[in-house]
């Protein structure tokens, strides 16, 4: 089959496609020849330049971008469908991290303190002197001084008796 007859058949089939469904073989022929034959391709794209130039004048060539509000609505729909993560749930999951970190720091501090001082070391409270006037019978005035509250209490009792 020569080039001219390919062109003729190509044209006939393309024109016929407007009125009837082509067979698979016919469709495959269009696809194959449309790529292989420069003449067929040129005929196929007869209107391409005119249409391309017209489209350049078409304002719809550049669609006005959707506004941030538009996208916020789409985002909300996607979040509802589970396609986008919910920022609220993200913030909720972020909060428990703070107490966890604080607890960890506290634990480390305690362990370090134990390693440094040992478990038996106790803090000794500063010496205290407490003076009490006991409610003793008349004529038996006494002043009692004692040191500390829990251990090693030293008591001094002064009595006029």
């Amino acid at each position, binding site marked *: 089959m020569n080039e001219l007859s390919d062109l003729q058949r190509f044209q006939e089939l393309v024109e016929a496609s407007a009125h009837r469904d082509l067979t698979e073989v016919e469709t495959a022929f269009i*696809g194959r020849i449309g790529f292989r034959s420069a003449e067929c391709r040129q005929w196929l794209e007869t*209107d391409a330049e005119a*249409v391309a130039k*017209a489209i350049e004048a078409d304002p719809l060539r550049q669609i006005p971008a959707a506004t941030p509000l538009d996208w916020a609505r789409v985002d909300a729909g*996607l979040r509802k469908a589970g396609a*986008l993560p919910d920022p609220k749930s993200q913030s909720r999951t972020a909060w428990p991290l703070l107490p966890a970190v604080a607890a960890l720091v506290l634990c480390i501090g305690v362990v370090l303190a134990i390693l440094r001082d040992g478990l038996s070391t106790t803090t000794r409270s500063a010496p205290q002197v407490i003076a009490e006037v006991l409610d003793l019978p008349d004529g038996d005035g006494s002043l009692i001084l004692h040191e500390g509250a829990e251990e090693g209490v030293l008591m001094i009792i002064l009595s006029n008796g």
Partner: protein
Amino acid sequence: MDVEKDDEDRRLVHRHLSGDPSGFEQLYRRHRERIFAVLVRMLRNRDDALEATQEVFIRIHRGLDSFDASGRFLTWAFRIATNHAIDRIRRRKVRKETAIVEEAVAPSSDLRTGRSHSPEGSHRLEREEVAAAIHQAVDGLAETHRIVFTLHCYEKLSYGEIAAVLGIPIGTVMSRLYHARRKVRDTLPRDWDPGGPRRTKKRAEE
């Protein structure tokens, strides 16, 4: 450049499939404007297109595990968007373009910035006339032809890419595009001189 973008898309898909939700989120933010634009042109209505964009990305999210990583993510996404647009068109009578087209056809406003400009009288009239003719012609196209026309003339997809997006033979893409272009060309003003090639004798005689 496109290859790098495609590779990045694949990485994001993999990230999503590995359990990181930021993978899908980034895919959505990278491609939502383009999907929206395709849907506006197919559905001819901005509100419909916005709603459809949301539905398309939900479909993409649910179907990402079936994405074949040897192909282009954008081709796959276009296929979902196109099928969804066809579903919507068939499911109900699509509202005719309203605000978007009124705004878009307005000759003295810049679509993106809203700034006014005043082209010369004759040029402005010609532009308005051509814009109106294009809209009329594209509106009048059969749905299957309009989709092929949109993907080729506005989205600059090749015959092969359109065939992949729509899942149809290249021969069908060629014949549909031929008829769509001819119809649009025939709707343009008679004195519109694109400087393009003239039709063959056979066509002129028809």
